[in-house]
């Protein structure tokens, strides 16, 4: 019973823990059937700064379907100084993205079927393609690109192995959603 009331379910089937911290929810898109566990933090307020008069880009963080954000993970849009101006840039997560406990994500793009382990740091403007597995405790350097079918580990993260052709099946999170 306690388990039931822990999550708020949205129309599209997202389950968001009451104990999570979601800032700037008007700038966050959840694709549906995504689970956000307790103590997660999503910084939707950190969106692109635009000169006055222009309409700001509305989306700071877009999350696909069947994603799973474990306890204590943090999604923060990446930031940099471009032409003398500090700005945040949007972050996009694909479908079936798993984020492990205590991981900090500042990636620009994360593809579909990506599993990120515990206590990882995904550096600013990292691009992770589809079907990637990031082992626990990996630190991916800023501006890195991780190609598809990679197993990344280390500090800084290096591709150490190739994933098999069945990676999409292995990394699928539909069953996980059903279990919550």
């Amino acid at each position, binding site marked *: 019973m306690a388990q039931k009331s822990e999550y708020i379910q949205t129309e599209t089937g997202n389950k968001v823990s009451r104990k999570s911290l979601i800032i700037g929810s008007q700038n966050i898109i959840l694709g549906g059937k995504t689970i956000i566990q307790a103590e997660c933090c999503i910084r939707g307020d950190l969106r692109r700064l635009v000169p006055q008069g222009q309409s700001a880009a509305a989306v700071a963080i877009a999350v696909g379907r069947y994603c799973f954000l474990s306890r204590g993970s943090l999604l923060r849009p990446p930031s940099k100084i471009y*032409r003398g101006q500090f700005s945040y840039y949007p972050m996009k997560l694909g479908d079936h993205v798993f984020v*492990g406990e205590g991981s900090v994500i500042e990636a620009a793009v994360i593809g579909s079927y990506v599993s990120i382990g515990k206590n990882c740091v995904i*550096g600013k403007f990292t691009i992770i393609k589809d079907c990637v597995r990031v082992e626990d405790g990996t630190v991916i*350097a800023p501006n890195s*690109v991780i190609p*598809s079918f990679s197993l990344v580990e280390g500090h*800084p993260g290096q591709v150490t192995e190739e994933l098999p052709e*069945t990676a999409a099946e292995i990394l699928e999170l539909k069953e*996980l959603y059903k279990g919550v």
Partner: protein
Amino acid sequence: MSSFPYIHISCPCNEDRPQLMAVDSARPLSPTKSPTKRDFPAPIPSSAPQTPSKRRGGPMAPSASFESTDTIADIEDDNDTEEDEENNFDPRDQRAAFSLFPIENLLYCEDCHQIRCPRCVQDEIVCWYCPSCLFEVPSSTVKSDGNRCTRNCYLCPICTALLVVIPVNHTSSSTLATEQPVGPFNLFCSHCHWTTSDLIPPLQLEKPTSISAQLAKLTPSAQDAEFTRLKQHYAQQLGNAQEDFTNSPAALTRLMGLYTGIGSGGGSHGSGMGGVGRKGRGVKKLEMKEIDRLREVIEEKELDTIERMATLGLDATANTKQRLSQPHEPRFLTEMRPTAVLLRTKRSKRCRACRHILVKPESKVQTTRFRIRLVALNYIPSLTIKRLEPTIQLTNLTPHKTHRFLLTVTNPLFDPISVSLLTPRYTPGTEYASRITILCPEFEVGANTDVWDDALMSTKPPPPPVVPTTPSSSFTGAGGTKDPRMSTVYEQKRNYTSVVIEVVPPEIPDTRETRIRDERLLEVPIFVRVEFEAEVDRDDEEGGGGGGSAAAKAAAAAGNPLGREKVEYSYWCVVGIGRVGDPVEGVVASEPNTPVRTPVGTPVKAPRTPGMSKTPLRQRLARE
């Protein structure tokens, strides 16, 4: 090693061991051969448990629970018993590890009807690409420029993170004022903050683009120079480098002449050679000799290096990994060069036996789709194991205690299958054998129908549990007071069936020898035999795989009972259950015949531990 519990499947390449060759050829592994052999009556007593009791005769097989079935088996099927007698899979065999893979890593050849592991396939490169900029590199460029990215992708020589280009004079005012940053530029590692200005002499670029060309100019290496010189030379020798010299016989002779010329010139290098053409070769020979010679160690230079090491300290020297990743093998960090990113490949895979393509990815770099993908996951039933009692600690199993696990067989096929699980009564290959019992070794697994069918099915009552095909008397023989209901399946759903497996680990002393042999690791070999009725083979009319399962589905949908044939195949798998812990007071050796506490037939939800949410994988989830 992977976390417990794990299930690895043995690829048939393991059976190519020479001493077992003759025996193995008799095994009906291939479904193409076996159905024609004979028509099996509906419940096949022979197929099942002859392996367990037949295995170590004498003291190792005390309670011959399957004796009755054995005799039938002997009469019915000589081949199989003969094969099974000697041929229990031993997970501790030193060769076994080479052919054991998780099912996700295995492929399946539709023509051979065999599992294919990464060792049994042949890779063919579809395309090269840079893993950093994700641009495809044409094979001609790979041939001419080597296997590294020729664009602007460079890695930090210290920490291997990607380098970015930043202006040397990096002040906030300059970036504010100017539209375009002005040079000179550095390569900067945003992970360890190494820059090319740390080098001695500092390496600075004029432009933020075409880094490869600039670096090549700034850091000429002796090896590269020599290589380009040699390449130029051979291009000259070949005349027209564009010519496809491997196909034309004339060009081939010329090429052969080139090499034999060098070889014959070896004896008389230095001496004058007749002919203009030959002279060129003679000169080249001398150059090659120079690059091949032993490396000269100059004492002064070495002393200088030692002195520098003494003053700068060990922190300023490159470690072995860093050093070997550089072509000039520098001793000091200040001599390191940025390394270009190694290219990666997309590969298609062929069966080594029949040369049919098993995997063919789409050639576009950024897509993850496959044109052909014959993975074992779609062909053979997959096994998962989970604890029946959540109190079981997988890394600390109690000796002499009966541990119950739930073994789930999931059917990926569109036909219902009947499965026989055979296991040795005691784990092989060790002095400290654990006792294993699969309570219901024969059962049915439903077809992998559509999810919609499942949704419709859920309103109907689930199919009644399958009546055990094995006579329950065989169990009483083993168990005495055993609850006969345990010989039924534990849980049955759309396309999976769960049965209970009991494991009684022995007491294993903690000596040096047992540690070396890792005796406490508890691995259980299970022989899986699958039988089902499939529609008659499509006579290879389908052009390449992928369509196979779809065709099967279509046929199943049409409900065409005609032209169906029995297919059977089998494979060994190894279940890594856990580690045996130290003996616990009060738990003594006894026959593991305590009745099962959980009522049979009640579906029990998987024990949910808080830690499970961390495990992303569906497989792991199922095992929890």
